[in-house]
């Protein structure tokens, strides 16, 4: 019952967030001197939400989506990405990443899904950044708060971006925002998946549901409860500990690389300027 309670709290809390997110995009992108944005459209809910927010912020002429399937990617993902493209009237381009992935793994042999998945995520990132030059566009992030906290993403792959409008929204909140901005129903209904291999779903891979994860994360992070206090709500201690450990172990993915301090003004330590410096 705590899940239902927190879920409903998280969902209702986003009721008025859309205008703020749209304005955030406008200001944080335009102050960098860019008028256009680019990002990968996977067919999933996160990138769909970013697309709808970006079109509200900049108009469809300024929003560029890249659909980058691998040969094993599900056909439904591409179809769902195209639904977003057609619904919003976006300029979108399809880039099949199979040749570059296959060329690499023809030389470097591995069947490890993690390595193959990471490689695909990083190839997609490099394609997005390459197109950012062609479109004179800033790369938008599509990672949500749940993924960022759990470290469920590839460093310098799908986690890479210049500006991320949805990084403070849990997955369950993304679903609510998706409804508010009009994301197609088929995208709302399907199981979330990184689609890095066939039949992959986030929840099978993670071993818990997003509702469980978001509730536990909300209690641990936002409400600052202890592990014991969270378990007292009836969660299995092993699950709560797994989630907390993931948050901790993946802190590095949320930070810039650590620099050895030698001088009196070291980047990231005592050379401290806002990101918006000079913009």
């Amino acid at each position, binding site marked *: 019952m705590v899940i239902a309670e927190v879920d409903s709290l998280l969902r*209702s*809390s*986003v*009721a*008025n*967030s859309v205008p*703020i997110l749209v*304005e*955030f995009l406008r*200001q*944080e992108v335009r102050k960098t001197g860019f008028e256009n944005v680019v990002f990968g459209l996977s067919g999933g809910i996160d990138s769909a939400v970013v697309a709808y927010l970006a079109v509200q912020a900049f108009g469809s002429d300024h929003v560029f989506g890249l659909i980058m399937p691998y040969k094993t990617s599900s056909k439904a993902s591409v179809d769902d990405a195209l639904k977003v493209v057609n619904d919003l009237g976006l300029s979108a381009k399809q880039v099949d990443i199979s040749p570059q992935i296959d060329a690499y793994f023809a030389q470097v042999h591995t069947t490890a899904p993690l390595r193959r998945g990471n490689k695909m995520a990083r190839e997609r990132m490099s394609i997005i950044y390459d197109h950012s030059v062609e479109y004179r566009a800033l790369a938008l992030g599509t990672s949500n708060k749940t993924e960022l906290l759990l470290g469920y993403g590839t460093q310098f792959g799908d986690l890479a971006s210049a500006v991320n409008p949805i990084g*403070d929204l849990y997955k369950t909140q993304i679903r609510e925002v998706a409804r508010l901005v009009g994301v197609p129903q088929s995208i709302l209904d399907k199981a979330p998946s990184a689609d890095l291999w066939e039949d992959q779903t986030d929840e099978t891979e993670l071993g818990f549901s997003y509702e469980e994860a978001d509730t536990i994360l909300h209690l641990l992070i936002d409400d600052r409860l202890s592990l014991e206090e969270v378990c007292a709500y009836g969660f299995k201690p092993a699950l709560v500990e797994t989630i907390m450990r993931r948050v901790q172990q993946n802190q590095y993915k949320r930070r810039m690389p650590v620099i050895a301090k030698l001088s009196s003004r070291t980047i990231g330590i005592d*050379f*401290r*300027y*806002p*990101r*918006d*410096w*000079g*913009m």
Partner: protein
Amino acid sequence: MKLLRIALGQVSPRLGDVSENVRKHIDFATSAKEKGAHVVVFPELGLTGYQLRDLAFHVARPLNHPDITSLIDASKALDIDMVFSFVEQTPAYRFCVSSVYATKGTIAHVHRKIYPPTYGLFEEGRQFSKGDAIDSFSLGDHRAGMMICEDAWHPSVPYLLSVSGVDVMYVPAAGPGRALSGDPHSGSQMFWNRMLRTYAQLYTSFMVFVNRVGFEDGVFFFGHSFVASPTGEFIGGSESHDECLTTVDIDLEIVRKERYRSPFLRDEDIYLTERTLSRIIREGRTW
């Protein structure tokens, strides 16, 4: 009726660009004068932007710096009083978040922020020195006082301003919104509204809240500048989180009526307050 037309200059400063922000202040002041305002009020750090970190060192200005004197001069040239805020570098090189009340080409008062917050998303204590004086000042037919943002979250600040005799308290702010409340107004925004209306009623004074707008490093500032009357009512404001200039007319006669009807200030026993505070200080904090 003693009418004072107040213009709320709800700006989005350009981070670190003092001369651009001075220009914007002068533009807003010019428009405010055209709207017949007697005073135009700008938000906390309106001349510098808020999330400064090490930029504080670059944007700090002494009171006699041309960027600052140009605004003081503008209060005479445009014939409008101005409340503006910036990083003040004192003669001994303390760096303070300060707010100036300029009138007729002179400085009527400088308030240095007493409580630069250093917790959560705030890190002002890293760069800024605390102010050490709270005082009101005369503007001829009424007295005013200033407190900057976090100062207002310490009830002692409006209390001391009140007993030093103010009729109008100016509150320049850089209040960040936390949009996830499910309410069209964020939690912090609602709290500001409740708090300042309560102060207005308890201290039988006008409260003039001017909050900045815009995003800095992802942080959203919610605007919604407003004026509360000594009756505790909201009497006008911007209702927006965009840049705008809103004028609100206040009738200073209301202070007279409210202080007769609700003589909290007359009955306030500052001697008891002083004796009690002295005893607590003498005995030390036991908590």
